[in-house]
């Protein structure tokens, strides 16, 4: 016999106060007597001043102890486990989340889950069929209503532990979709737990839960972020202690495969610890929390130092101020156009026109600064006296935003199929972008006459304008498995995952997501990102 709620047996501790109440001397009962005259002559009429007495077994005590025992057992809900009769069509939902790789199984939890599934498969009734649904980051059906044990085993052999959270909601939906109505359907969930309340409510009715894994010892790197800081990279890691006793472990940071930092960290149960350090510049940053626990997968985290690729800028017109501005931006190479000569935009990422007309056939993104006659599709209607710098970025890259001298700005109206015609505040600088990459542009009437500190504000503004125009946003330095990869949705790209598998993403395809922890690569048709 086992208990469905073993914690209820803790109520047996109520026996202690019951016994204590019987050991404690009861409050003396007042007994009126004719006189204390005779009683006072007795020596030590009070047997003891101690508040307790010898335990005397009585029917009342035994009844109270019996009641406590019955209550504890009732709350613990004793159950007798018997072999569960499987349904004629049994759907095995196997958790393939990263935690199933914990090594407290044989050798890990997933192996235990597969072994349990194989064992349970033998309990299917005659003519019974089995389905297998893998509850990984991307749930999928591995086997559909198959009566063949060999096919079942083959499906199980294809299971590999994922490296992210399981999408249980999707897995449950898939499992329920396998129900045909022709046969009785039952569901068995093989998991190490970790389902949220919402996910538990989404289980198909009658799902039998078979738990795998019992250990809880786990420490890991919860988060790793990297940002360039001068001539070094600043690494910030968050370490978590999720189970087991206090531990002192070695934390290590590798940059491009070379150990750049190591220290001993003390982790306390149920807490997190932030570790920050500066490491030399590099591309690939890996953080390791060394020391054995039952879940090694989260003992390593990776991140890349987000660095933008070099940008070639063609500068036309007045070059004095804007040339210095562009030169102050790291990774920018400025090519000055010869006055009167035709523009050569070969290998040019963006063109800047300073107080000079913008050619109508410009075929690269451009920045027009106080253009005398506006820009293609943009008419100049006035100027502002005291502009201030502000950047307003729209989330939709296909629609123009604006850079306004004040916080008050107006989203331009779309005029398809014409190129977007931004109308911000009168005379305000603005950026715009159409569906064609070449249709991105910015105009600014004030960059040449502003008195804002050049070494502070304008490099930032210039950097952001160039980033916006060239579409070379810095990649996210750290991605979780399951997060979207930083691939421009409008560009075709090739994604190479950490194990070297290539996948071509056409323009307009859905954004791919990270499926494994490690260093991958994506390349657009124009440039690697």
């Amino acid at each position, binding site marked *: 016999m086992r208990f469905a709620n073993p914690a209820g047996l803790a109520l047996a501790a109520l026996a202690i106060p019951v016994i204590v109440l019987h050991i404690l*001397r*009861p409050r*003396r*009962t*007042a*007994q*009126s*007597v*004719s*006189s*204390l*005259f*005779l*009683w*006072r*002559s*007795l*020596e030590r*009429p*009070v*047997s*003891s001043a101690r508040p307790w007495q010898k335990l005397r077994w009585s029917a009342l005590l035994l009844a109270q102890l019996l009641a406590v025992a019955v209550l504890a057992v009732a709350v613990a809900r004793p159950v007798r486990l018997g072999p569960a009769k499987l349904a004629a069509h049994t759907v095995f939902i196997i958790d393939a989340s990263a935690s199933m790789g914990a090594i407290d199984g044989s050798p890990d939890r997933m192996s235990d889950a597969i072994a349990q599934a194989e064992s349970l498969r033998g309990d299917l009734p005659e003519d019974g069929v089995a389905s297998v649904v893998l509850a990984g980051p991307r749930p999928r059906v591995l086997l559909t209503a198959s009566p063949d044990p060999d096919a079942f085993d083959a499906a199980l052999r294809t299971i590999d532990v994922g490296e992210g959270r399981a999408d249980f909601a999707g897995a449950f939906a898939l499992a329920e979709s396998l129900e045909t109505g022709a046969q009785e359907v039952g569901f068995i969930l093989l998991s190490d737990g970790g389902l949220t309340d919402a996910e538990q409510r989404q289980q198909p009715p009658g799902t039998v839960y078979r738990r795998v894994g019992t250990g809880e010892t786990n420490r890991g790197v919860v988060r790793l972020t990297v940002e360039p800081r001068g001539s070094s990279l600043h690494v910030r890691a968050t370490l978590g202690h999720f189970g087991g006793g206090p531990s002192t472990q070695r934390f290590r940071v590798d940059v491009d495969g070379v150990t750049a930092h190591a220290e001993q960290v003390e982790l306390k149960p149920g807490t997190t610890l932030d570790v920050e350090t500066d490491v030399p510049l590099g591309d690939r940053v890996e953080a390791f929390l060394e020391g054995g626990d039952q879940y090694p997968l989260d003992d390593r985290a990776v991140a890349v130092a987000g660095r933008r690729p070099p940008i070639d800028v063609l500068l036309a017109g007045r070059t004095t101020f804007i040339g210095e501005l562009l030169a102050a931006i790291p990774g920018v190479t400025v090519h000055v156009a010869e006055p009167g000569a035709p523009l050569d935009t070969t290998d040019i990422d963006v063109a800047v026109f300073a107080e000079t007309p913008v050619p109508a056939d410009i075929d690269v993104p451009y920045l027009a600064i106080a253009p005398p006659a506006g820009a293609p599709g943009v008419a100049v209607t006035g100027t502002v006296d005291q502009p201030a710098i502000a950047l307003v970025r729209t989330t939709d890259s296909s629609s123009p935003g604006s850079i306004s001298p004040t916080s008050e700005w107006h989203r331009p109206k779309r005029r398809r199929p014409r190129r977007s015609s931004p109308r911000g505040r009168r005379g305000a600088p603005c950026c715009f972008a159409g569906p064609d990459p070449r249709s991105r542009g910015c105009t600014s009437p004030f960059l040449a006459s502003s008195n804002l500190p050049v070494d502070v504000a304008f490099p930032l503004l210039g950097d952001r304008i160039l980033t916006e125009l060239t579409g070379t946003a810095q990649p996210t330095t750290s991605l979780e498995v399951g997060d979207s990869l930083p691939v421009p949705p409008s560009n075709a790209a090739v994604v190479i995952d950490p194990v070297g598998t290539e996948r071509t993403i056409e323009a307009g395809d859905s954004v791919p997501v990270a499926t494994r922890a490690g260093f991958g690569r994506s390349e657009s048709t124009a440039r690697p990102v």
Partner: protein
Amino acid sequence: MAAEPLLDPALLARLERVQLVTGRRLVGRFSGEHRSSRHGSSLDFADYRDYHPGDDFRRIDYSLYARTDQLFIRLFEAEDDLAVRLLVDTSASMGFDGKLRQAARLAAALGFVSLVRRDAVQLYSFPPGRADRFNGRSSLAALMHRLETMEPAGITDIDRAADALLARSGPPGMSIVISDLLTPTWPAAIERLPARGGEVTVVHVLSNAELDPELAGDLDLVDAESGDRLPVSLTHDVVADYRASVQAWLADIEARCAHRGVRYVRVEADDDIEEVLLRSWRRAGVVR
């Protein structure tokens, strides 16, 4: 529904023939039925004495004068009444287990016996110390009413009651104290009561619960008179010690009474009053 009378008529009829016994002759105030220590005018010859001028010459024994040629006066025994003082303890402790009721019945019986013998009865209840005098059979009803309306209250102050008794004038007579003596001052009272002269009888009224308590366990004993509390753990040994202590106390009272010439009788609250009066007390010489 009328309250039950202290003494039923049948017992009263028997008590008509009962008389208080005094160990020695006591001088009374009026003529009565008890032999007095002085000479009087009864028919019982007592003695001769020399004639002195002024003596009643009718008492001169002329026969003796003829033989001896001297004048002698014949003396006869006097029969006086008996001044009976009933001191009844009405303290709160007497309210337990019917002790006061028993005391009232005993006092009523003694008062009845006295009144039918034309003895003067003085009822003195303490506390608070109220004295009433009853004379003659006609005051029987008043005596009974007085006894029936006594209520237990206050502290046993027998010492003060003894003082009050000693301070009262009148012939020594017989003093009968009816009390449970549950007070530390009882020895002093017994020592002083005989100082007035006359005879003193202590009727010790106790309940069975006081002699042989059936209490057990951890108790807070509350004194009915003072309200004081005494925590006790009544084991078998402690109760046995209590019983021994009570017996020693009773023996001490008896010894002191004997030493001071005080007659001592003990009555339990649930004793049969007829058995006590007509048998036990007769054997003890309290009545005849």
